[in-house]
């Protein structure tokens, strides 16, 4: 293999620059003033605090939860059953001293006075990004810290596409469907079909969910993967025996597990994207046995490169090996 000697100083510079940038953002966030143009929930909360008297009475445009519940009883009950309704947690809308509903919907006096829907924030009438801006006022950290710029954000998905504040069906995460997997299947039809193939992760059996691997709110990894910083790091977080580094490595495997495996499912053994040896022959055609036509004649003679696990009957250490004699992944 060729050798190229470059990049080492550049790498350090890039890493140092990255560290400085990350720290600068953090320091700026920690010490800066509240930015203008923030999502309106922050301002709403600030307003709410300033306009709430010590007894919880509202003075400027707020009517309080009891007034809302007069007409919106079911929504009020649904919300109070959820975590949003737990006033013990000072971060919840319920902790806003009687302004649970108005923390998200904004001051309701004008709506109450006129009876017009247009006088209050109705989420069904908001654009997806306006909906999200409201939710992100509070849900901007932890798993949600990477929402902005995520694939779902880019595709105009709103929080209320999947979640319901007042009427949810799941036991966790206030989803509109019973399970996270059902929610994902609503749009991701192709992946949902793959999961039903004979070779699949144990999603059908309820031992995993889409969210076992993916973070639907965005992540620092590719493909909204929850763990690690590359597809392989996500895979090897469970399949750690394939993590290496190995003395002898399979370059395709080192770079991308999905070159050979389809993690959503396939009809091939071990969720391979094609059957061995045909899959292996997509990259290896060197003289002699990798370039053989493994047709019916080979099947009749029960070639050990075709029947059973094909190439892996011998090259069983294909993910890498520590054996000094493992240069062909035989040991």
């Amino acid at each position, binding site marked *: 293999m060729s050798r190229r000697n470059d990049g080492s100083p550049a790498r350090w510079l890039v890493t140092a620059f990255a560290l400085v940038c990350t720290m600068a953002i953090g320091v700026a966030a920690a010490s800066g003033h509240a930015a203008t143009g923030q999502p309106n929930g922050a301002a709403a909360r600030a307003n709410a605090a300033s306009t709430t008297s010590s007894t919880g009475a509202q003075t400027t445009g707020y009517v309080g939860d009891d007034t809302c519940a007069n007409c919106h009883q079911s929504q009020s009950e649904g919300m109070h059953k959820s975590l949003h309704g737990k006033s013990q947690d000072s971060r919840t809308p319920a902790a806003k001293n009687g302004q649970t509903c108005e923390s998200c919907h904004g001051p309701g006096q004008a709506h109450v006075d006129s009876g017009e829907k247009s006088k209050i924030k109705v989420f069904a009438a908001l654009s997806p990004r306006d909906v999200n801006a409201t939710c992100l006022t509070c849900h901007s950290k932890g798993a949600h810290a990477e929402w902005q710029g995520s694939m779902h954000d880019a595709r105009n998905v709103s929080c209320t596409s999947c979640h319901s504040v007042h009427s949810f069906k799941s036991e966790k995460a206030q989803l509109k469907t019973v399970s996270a997997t059902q929610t994902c299947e609503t749009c991701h039809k192709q992946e949902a079909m793959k999961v039903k193939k004979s070779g699949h992760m144990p999603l059908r059996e309820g031992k995993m969910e889409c969210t076992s691997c993916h973070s639907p709110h965005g992540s620092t990894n590719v493909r909204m993967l929850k763990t690690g910083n590359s597809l392989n790091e996500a895979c090897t977080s469970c399949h750690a025996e394939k993590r290496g580094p190995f003395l002898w490595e399979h370059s395709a495997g080192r770079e991308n597990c999905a070159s050979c495996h389809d993690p959503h499912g396939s009809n091939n053994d071990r969720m391979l994207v094609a059957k061995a040896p045909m899959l292996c022959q997509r990259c290896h055609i060197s003289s002699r046995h990798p370039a053989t036509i493994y047709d019916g004649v080979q*099947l009749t003679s029960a070639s050990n490169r075709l029947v059973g696990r094909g190439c892996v009957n011998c090259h069983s250490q294909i993910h890498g090996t520590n054996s000094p004699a493992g240069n062909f992944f035989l040991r």
Partner: protein
Amino acid sequence: MRTRHLVMAAALLLTAAGVRAQEPSGGDPNEQKDVPKTAVSTGIPDIPLVNQIDFGLRTTTFGSDSDQARFQRYRDMRDGGTIDLMKFSKDTSEYRFRFEANHIGYRDQSFSAAYNNYGNVKATFDWNQVPLFYSQDTQTLYSSTSPGVLVLPDSLQTGLQNKTTSLVNAVTTGSVFDLQAKRNNAAFNLIYNATQSVDFSVFFRNSDRTGAQPYAISYGISGAVASEFAAPLDQRTTEFGASMQWSNDRGLAKLGYDGSFFRNNLPSLSVDNPLRVSDSPTAGPAFGRLAGAPNNNVNTGSALAAINLPAHSRATGYLSISNITNNTPLLPFTSNTALVSPTLDRTNADLTARVTSMNYNFTSRPTNYLWFNARYRQHEYDNRSNPFHVGNGVNYDTSIVALNENAELLGFTKRTFDADASVTPFKFVAFRAGYTREGMDFANPSNGEVGRMIDSSVEDTGRVSADLTGVGWLTLRGVYEHSKRVGSGFDLQTLLDLGEQPGLRQFDIADRDKDSFRGIIFVQPVSQFSVNASAGIGKEDYPGTTFGLRNNDNHVYSVGADFEPIDKVSMGVNYGYEKYTALQASRTSNPLPANTLAYLADPTQTFNDPRRDWTDNSGDTVHTLDASIDLIKLIPKTEVKTSYSLSNGESTYVYAVQPNQTLVVAPTQLAPITNKLQRGTVDARYFLTQHVAIGVVYWYDKYDVADFALGPQPSLALPATASPALMTMGNYYRPYSANTFWGRFTYLW
């Protein structure tokens, strides 16, 4: 087994208790019976009671020759008593506690508990067992004398070595056993809300993997037998992490540490060679030895910061640095004592990799009409190990070969820049255009060694999408992408050194043109009825590829409908069609003589003869159907849920040769591979009272499969002749049909 009996006894006792619960109570006559917690006149709550225990008896009958292991696969479906679900929840104004257990006493049992002291602490604990049942009738001649050592009877090896015994006959005497593995996953998470803006979190996870998996070893190319065996598993992955996060309206900062430690208690697997009882310098070893998956440690430090900026903007920076080590003691080159094992360059693996990842993102929505995002992502895998030099190596424990090479230290750097802009001309509609440049540098950062046939590649992707979302009756999404990948620094000599054709390109790094479209539409004209349809079309061409994967296409379509005429009846159906095709090419030939470059133009070399070219056109077609009908209390106090699921796939591999070919008479085509997986379920439950329900469940499962390579073979020794080249365990893909009956008793409170 013992646990299962206990569960059965418990289930029977609980059943009796449940029956008693329906008998008139001798308690307070003023106590209201069967009054729902919600005011529903039927006595059945609309809001389900949260606590419940579900227990009963289950049995499964199988069709003849059914593969019971594949039916169970990731489940434990043995007959007996079940406590299928136990759920308890307590919610106060101060805290919420939730406990849930599933399939108690079976190999697929799981337990979870969550405690949320509102505003203070959130803690969760999960225990999840995932079985993997390969086969219930696997057969092997091997037995284990100590962990990781699989032996054959010496008499058998002697007989086979001396050709007085036939392997075809011998394999029929193998012992039958269950081949299965299991993961036990434990996870604990805790988040402590220290202040309004500061959170501390820790997690601990442990995953054990035990049992055995099918594996194989070979002892030579010709005249040897590749042997399949049940490789024992005794592995553990332990992870620990802690982080501190500060956040408020202005942004957030987070520092974290993650550690992951993999331990394999079987550092090597020694497996007897069926054909040799004694080591030979020419005919191979008495046993071969595989290196076990090596222990490894990963320590990662990361920092994440985000700041909210004017105009609905946010900048995010993330940096992560990991150190991965593997310092497992190395095995000798060979287990064959008749060979002088070459000297190891060092005694331990002493391998280290540094992974540096960074991710910078800027998102802005300056007006309601405009959104844009720019992201730079870099992922560098730097193998910092010292070179491991191999002067002489050993092939198949059979021969010493001069290699005089270093083990490759593979590393790479991936840099991705994304820019997307979206306009929202109407409230619910967004049009987006985006561009991505992804660069791969295949040089290992610390030493510049390139482990691939090209030095680097760049892929440019353009995309447009339209999304209509947020409207109650209509959702419409579509995205089209075109990308072009071009490599540079092609190294012909690298290919030739491997004996590969100059026209070969490896599809994962080859020049590629890619087009794809995905779209989906939901229409809900009335609240009771909705239809949906989706389409995915993709095409990949590898323009510089003569040999290897040349192109592949995929077409995926689905249509579905949901109908809920009244709130007690709901039904849905979804049909999907998938078609994948791929074309690959190769040439069957002898290798070039040494000094290969000089022979590339030599027409007498079969290596250069285009008449020896062949192609393989593969196709996968899959039909998927899902249908369900739920009747929730249409009949008073009764719930009935039915569903049907089908995945029906066919894979073909069709070979073609040149018209003037000199290779074979004509390829004999392989039979199509078929996989048809069906499941039908009926789940009926009758509420005797608000608290007590009885139910019956019926599952129909059927799997039809025909696979020329993985299906049943005439013998465990293949070919079934005097000179087999493969000894299998009979871990085949076989069909099954199963009828599962389940009587259930549910107590809710």
